C-alpha cells in the first residue's frame, strides 16, 4: 500500500514538473514580447532592453526556468508583469470563486444524477428509464455555453428570477452570493449529470443482481432502503472516477462559464493574463490547475480505499 501510494505520488509529481516545463518553453517561444507592450510605442531599444533585464527576460529559457523553480521551492511564484501583484495572491483571491462554482455545480449534478440513476436502475427498461436516457443523451449534446445562454434567457431575462451575470462576495450575504452562482452552476451541472447518471445506472443494475440484495429483500426492508443503504455504495466506484475527472477538468475548464457570467475565478484570471501577456500569472495558473488536476486524481484513488473496505485491509496487509 505504502509503495503503491509512493509510486503514484512520484508519478504525479513528475506530471506536474512536465506540465510546468512545457508551459515555460511554450510561453518562451511565443514571438510577441511583453517588453514592447510595457515600454510603449515610443520606447527606445535601450529602454526595452532595460525592461527585459528587469523582468529577467534577457536570460536563457533554461536559466529562467531554473530561477522560477528555485523561488517556487521557497513558496514564491513570482509577480505579475503588469500589476506587480504576487502571483500566489492573485490566484488565492480568485480561488474561492472557482471552488464555490465547482462544488455547487457538482452538488447539483449529483442531486440530479443519483436519484435518477438509482431509479432508472431500479426500474430499468421502464418508460421513465428510456425517456430519461434519451433526455440525457440530448442534454450531453448541448454545449455548456449554449446551455448557459438558454438559462440566462429563461431565468434572467424572461422570468427575472436570477441575475444574468455578476458576482456578489459572501460578505454581501449568503443568499446574495448564492443567487449569482445558481445559473453558472446549473449550466455545468445540467450537462455533467448525464455521464454520472449513466454510470451509476449501469453499475447499479449489476449490483441489484447480487445475492446480498436478495438477502436484504429477504430481511423485509423496503425498496428505497435497499437501494440507498445496500446498493448505492457498492455501485458508486465508477461514479467517483467520473466525478473526479469532471472536477479535475473544471478547475481550469470552467473558464467559459466564468466568462459568460462574469465570475472572477481562476479561469478568468488565466484568460485575462493570456490576453495581457502576463506570463508569470499564466505560468502560475497553469501550475495551479495541473496540481489541482493531479491532486483530485490522487484523492479519487484514495476515496476508493475509503469506500471499499476490501481494498482497505488488503492494503494494510501489504
Amino acid at each position, binding site marked *: 500500500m505504502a509503495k503503491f501510494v509512493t509510486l503514484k505520488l512520484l508519478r504525479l509529481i513528475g506530471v506536474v514538473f512536465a506540465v510546468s516545463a512545457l508551459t515555460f518553453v511554450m510561453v518562451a517561444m511565443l514571438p510577441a514580447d511583453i517588453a514592447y507592450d510595457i515600454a510603449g510605442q515610443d520606447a527606445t531599444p535601450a529602454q526595452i532592453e532595460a525592461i527585459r533585464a528587469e523582468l529577467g527576460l534577457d536570460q536563457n529559457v533554461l536559466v529562467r526556468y531554473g530561477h522560477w523553480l528555485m523561488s517556487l521551492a521557497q513558496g514564491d511564484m513570482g509577480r505579475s508583469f503588469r500589476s506587480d501583484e504576487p502571483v500566489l495572491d492573485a490566484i488565492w483571491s480568485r480561488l474561492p470563486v472557482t471552488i464555490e462554482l465547482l462544488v455547487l455545480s457538482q452538488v447539483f449534478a449529483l442531486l440530479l444524477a443519483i436519484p435518477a440513476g438509482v431509479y432508472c436502475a431500479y426500474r430499468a427498461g421502464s418508460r421513465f428509464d428510456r425517456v430519461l436516457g434519451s433526455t440525457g443523451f440530448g442534454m450531453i449534446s448541448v454545449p455548456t455555453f449554449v446551455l448557459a445562454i438558454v438559462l440566462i434567457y429563461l431565468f434572467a431575462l424572461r422570468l427575472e428570477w436570477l441575475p444574468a451575470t455578476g458576482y456578489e462576495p459572501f460578505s454581501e450575504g449568503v443568499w446574495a452570493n448564492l443567487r449569482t452562482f445558481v445559473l453558472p452552476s446549473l449550466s455545468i451541472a445540467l450537462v455533467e449529470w448525464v455521464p454520472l447518471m449513466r454510470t451509476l445506472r449501469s453499475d447499479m443494475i449489476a449490483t441489484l443482481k*447480487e*445475492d*446480498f440484495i*436478495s*438477502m*436484504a*429483500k*429477504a*430481511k*423485509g*426492508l*423496503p*425498496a428505497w*432502503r435497499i437501494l440507498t*443503504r*445496500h446498493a448505492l*455504495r*457498492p455501485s458508486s466506484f465508477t461514479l467517483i472516477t467520473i466525478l473526479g475527472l469532471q472536477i479535475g477538468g473544471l478547475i481550469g475548464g470552467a473558464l467559459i462559464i466564468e466568462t459568460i457570467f462574469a465570475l472572477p475565478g481562476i479561469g478568468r484570471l488565466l484568460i485575462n493574463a493570456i490576453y495581457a501577456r502576463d506570463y508569470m500569472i499564466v505560468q502560475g495558473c497553469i501550475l495551479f490547475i495541473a496540481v489541482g488536476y493531479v491532486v483530485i486524481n490522487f484523492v479519487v484513488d484514495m476515496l476508493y480505499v475509503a*469506500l*471499499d*473496505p*476490501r481494498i482497505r*485491509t488488503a492494503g494494510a496487509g501489504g
Partner: protein
Amino acid sequence: MLTVSNLRTHFHTGRGIVRAVDGVSFNLARGRTLGIVGESGSGKTVLVRSLLGLLPSTAKFGGETEIGFEGRPLDIRSETALNQVRGRAIAMVFQDPMTSLNPVMTVGAQITESLRYHLGLTGGEARERAVALIDSVGIPMARQRIDQHPHQLSGGLRQRVAIAIALACEPKLLIADEPTTALDVTIQAEILDLLARQQAERDMAMILITHDLGVVAGRADDIAVMYAGRIVERAPTARLFANMRMPYTQALMNAIPRLEAPPNTPLRTIGGRPPDLVNPPPGCRFAPRCPRAESRCTDHEPPLEGGESGHRFACWYPVGEPGAA
C-alpha cells in the same frame, strides 16, 4: 402453519415459458423441519424464493397458486404483503455466504438493520441484541466481530453471521437454501447442527433445501423430493429411508458416496440430464432416465398419492413392487 397449494412459478423468457415450479403443494407445521431434496435445476430454490418474492421480474405465478401462512392467505404477488412477513415471520439463509453478505457494510450494521427497522430498537439496544445473536450462533469474540466487514471472516463464520441475521427478529419459519453447499466439508456439519439447535430452541419451522439426502437424513422430520418442478415423493424421514418408492429417490440415495464402500468403487450417478423445462416430456418427467419406465410412464403422468402413514409418491411402478413386465 405454512400451506402451499398448487404453486406454479413460470419464467417468461425469449426461448419460451420455463416451468421452473409446476404445481407444488405441501403443508408445514409449527416447529417441524421439511427437507426438500433434488438435483440442481429441479426447482427447489425457485420454490422457496417464490415464497419470499425473491425472483426476477420475469417470474409469473399460476392462477390457482395459493399460499397460507399462520392461518391467513399470503399474497406472494404483492411486495407490500411480502414485506409484512419477510425478515419478521419468515427469514432465509442463502447458499453462498461469500456473496450473500453486503461487502461494504459491517457485520453489526447488517444484523442491527432489521432489528431497528422491524422492532424499532434504538442503536444501542440493537447493538446489544446483535452481540447476543452473534454469540448465540457460536462466533467467538462477538464484540470485536460486530465491527468487522464480511471479507475479514472465514466462510463458516460468514454463514453463521447470515444465520444470525436471519434469526434476528425471531422468525416463525426459517428457510435455509443449501446453507452448506459452498462451505468446507469440515464445517458443514457444524452449521447444520447450529441450524437444528436454533430451530429446536426457538420452536421455528424450517425448510432445509439440499441436493444431498445425507444432509437431511437425521435433521428433517419430513422429506420432499423434487424433480423437474414437481414433488415426486414425500414422506416422514424415517419412512422414506426405510422404504423408498420412487426410483428417482433411490437414484439420489445411491449417488451419495459412502465411507464404508471399498476404495475405487465407482459412484453411481444418475444417467441422462434433467428435462428441458420449456418442453417437459409427456407423462412422468423422470421416465426418460428411469430404469423401470414402461410405456405407461411416458403416456400418463402418475399422481402424487398412495402409501400409508403419509407416504406419497408419484410413480406407476414404484420400487418394491413388481414392474409391469
